[in-house]
């Protein structure tokens, strides 16, 4: 009995060894390097799902310049060092397009690695498409020709946010609470300086930092916010630090408006609903489901139907892939050295609304209309999408035009000859 199965297993192994995966030259390989295991995987997997979704769609229509798109996931465990090993692996396997997003530390590592790699290995160019790392240094002092960023960086987001607050006369006292690391500090420092310029009458009544994902109980912080008399809180918190913060606020009955960047991240909507803070939490994004734009909503419906358990997606990945394919078509080549110039200054009708954005040549930063959305109960007729099964969803509050997101760069880009 057992012998038979041993034999069977051996036969299976032997069979497996003979089937070498078909290596085809007519594919464009996209290496997706992000966390696919452990804690960070909850966000990393979403990007991979979405890329695969897009690739399937494009391949069904015949691919790009006659080649199929192949998306390969590489698990970087959210560590810059592992990332570099995985990027090396991807390059070995013939990948020339690296997509990465989560973690500015990882982004910085990839950007610097790709720049050095291209310098040291001329003729085998690799390009880094960044869909979520938003530390300003990536497109300022450390900017690189081989890096393109589709998410608005922190400075741009804050430019947009403060331009939005500028017109909100009811904002009088602002409290800042952020995670104690570089992103949190960028948010706090920039908000303080921009508000001082745009709305000198606004009082900053608190500027708090707390260690990254170490706080279990935010009640003391909420007590401090309450004591300060703030009417508005600006926070760059994400993940557990955001969820626990709003839950503590809900528990203690704190009534303020929250301006955030990552409230929509996984678990955020659930926490806001549990905290029962309707129409108080705002999020600055480049797009969300309930914008009244049919082409986007149709795609989203198909996507959600396929990834029922993880129905979250990033509109910017649609922008990124759309522009990438367009550039490849224009260059009629999947070689980054050839299609990268086409991306520069490319204009593109954004996925979320069809309004136009552009890739700034100077620093390879994509500029696009941004939206202030607010989370709460939906108008079923006009706003069909809720979040995480809460029954609540993101609703439009304001669009921030491309010109109001403009922020200068210090980038002095070294271009290949």
């Amino acid at each position, binding site marked *: *009995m*057992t012998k038979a*199965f*041993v034999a*069977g*297993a051996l036969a*299976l*192994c032997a*069979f*497996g060894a003979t*089937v070498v*995966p078909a290596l085809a030259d007519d594919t464009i390989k996209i290496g997706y390097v992000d966390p*696919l*295991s*452990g804690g960070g*995987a909850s966000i990393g*997997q979403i990007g991979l*799902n979405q890329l*695969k979704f897009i690739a399937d769609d494009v391949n069904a229509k015949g691919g790009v310049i006659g080649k199929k798109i192949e998306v390969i*996931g*590489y*698990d970087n*465990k959210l*560590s*810059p*060092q*592992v990332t*570099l*090993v995985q990027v*090396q*692996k991807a*390059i*070995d396997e013939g990948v020339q397009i690296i997509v990465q997003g989560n*973690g*500015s*530390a990882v*982004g*910085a*590592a990839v950007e*610097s*690695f790709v720049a*050095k790699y291209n310098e*040291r290995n001329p003729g085998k160019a690799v390009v880094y498409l960044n869909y979520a790392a938003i*530390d300003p*240094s990536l497109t300022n002092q*450390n900017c690189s020709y081989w890096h393109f960023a589709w998410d608005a960086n922190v400075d741009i987001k804050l430019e947009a946010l403060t331009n939005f607050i500028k017109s909100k006369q009811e904002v009088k006292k602002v409290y800042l609470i952020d995670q*104690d*690391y*570089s*992103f949190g*500090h960028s948010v706090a420092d920039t908000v303080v300086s921009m508000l001082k310029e745009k709305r000198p009458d606004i009082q900053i009544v608190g500027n708090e930092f707390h*260690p*990254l994902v*170490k706080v279990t109980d935010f009640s003391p912080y909420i007590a401090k916010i309450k004591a300060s008399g703030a009417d508005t809180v600006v926070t760059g918190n994400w993940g557990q630090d955001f969820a626990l913060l709003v839950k503590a606020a809900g528990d203690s009955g704190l009534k303020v408006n929250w301006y955030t960047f990552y409230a929509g991240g996984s678990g955020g909507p659930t926490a806001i609903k549990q905290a029962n803070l309707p129409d108080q939490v705002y999020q600055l994004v480049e797009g969300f489901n309930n914008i009244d734009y049919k082409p986007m909503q149709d795609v989203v419906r198909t996507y959600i139907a*396929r*990834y*029922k*358990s*993880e129905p979250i997606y990033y509109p910017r990945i649609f922008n990124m892939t759309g522009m990438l394919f367009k550039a490849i078509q224009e260059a009629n080549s999947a070689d980054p050295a050839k299609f990268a110039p086409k991306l520069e200054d490319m204009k593109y009708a954004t996925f979320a609304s069809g309004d136009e954005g552009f890739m700034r040549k100077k620093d390879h930063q994509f500029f696009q209309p941004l939206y202030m959305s607010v989370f709460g109960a939906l108008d079923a007729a006009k706003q069909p999408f809720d979040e995480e099964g809460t029954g609540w969803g993101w609703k439009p509050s304001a669009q921030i035009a491309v010109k109001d997101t403009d922020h200068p760069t210090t980038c002095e880009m070294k271009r290949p000859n």
Partner: protein
Amino acid sequence: MKNFLSTFGVWIVAAIVAACLPQLFGSGLALTSMSLMGMMIIFSLSYNMLLGQTGLLSFGHAVFFGLGGFFCVHAMNDVAAGKLPVPLIVVPLAGAAAGLVFGALLGWVSTRRGGTAFSMITLGIGELVASSALILRHFFGGEEGVTTNRTDLAPLFGLNFGPQLQVYYLIAAWCLVSVAAMYALTRTPFGRICNAVRDNPERAAFIGYDPQAVRFLSFTLSGLFAGIAGALAAINFEIMNAGQLGAAQSGAVILMVFIGGVGTFAGPIIGAILVTYLQVALSDVTDAWQLYFGLLFIGMVMFVPEGIAGLLLRQQPLLRERQLHRVVPFYALALLAGLVTIAGLSLAIEMANRLTAHAGDGPKMAFLHVPLNATSVLPWAIAAVLLVGGGWLFLRAARASRNAYDTALAASLAAALAHRSNA
């Protein structure tokens, strides 16, 4: 000559092997992985100076790895900025110095006691340093860390250390030197006294040694070598960030040392190579790699607590007395049955994973390149049969192997005795 060979032969062979490896494995990934293994070998040996040699279970060893790396990165940037004529190859000394100094500093605090108290202090210190690294943004570079460019340093004999191959040789050289130094250290009076303190700290005091001083010295020297490892990591990746001195890295080195084997000098080397390989390769095969890793680890702790090196060492008397043939068939049988069990287990895991975590990709999948449908009954039945049948066979084969080992060992002992009485 014979004396020379018996002392240095191993090292010469190791150097030749290290020099030839890139000829066999020349891809970019292979070079990166081997570089990684080189630094991890140093790191895990430095950890074994604590755990294996001195009996100190530290939960914060990555602190020295990380600090060594940060000081090295800053040293590289300063050297490059100041156009100093310092070649890259000596820069790891900066990491070594940092490891030594911080080893002494933190060792002074933590080695006052051994046992659980020591472990807990290192746990606390590890958390403190890792948290502080995010707060002290100027030195540690915040979230992005500190980047550098190794080619900005003055070239040495025309080598600018841009290509990974040159970096591999640099790391291999440092690895050989460090391993030799750490091996030599085990054969000094201090090295022996470390073992004595590990076995019985109280008695060590009554033969004239201060256990606290021994722990302190061991801790400091181990910090030095961890610092070298961190410096090599900095050179290899050209980036250093706060994650490198955190709990994950400290945990990884414990895994390496334990899987390889705590009791022997070669154990941590084996562990570093194996675990690094798994870390690089396993996540390609499956994204449930953490589960496999956990199971492997539990299996090792339960069935092979002496580690791989310990397992090999147990075969030594059989090999010497040529009794190995008595056990090899049983080992092969156990290995085969084990593989079948693993095949069944991983088939079940992969199908479950597909149905849950990857439901969006549909139930059609491939296992070992065999296409199958995770919702149909047959593959599940096969998995169950492989798992249960293989497991049952494995347990029997393992028992038979143990019996065979005992008989063979007895035979070897008898043979050894016979040799001696003849002589």
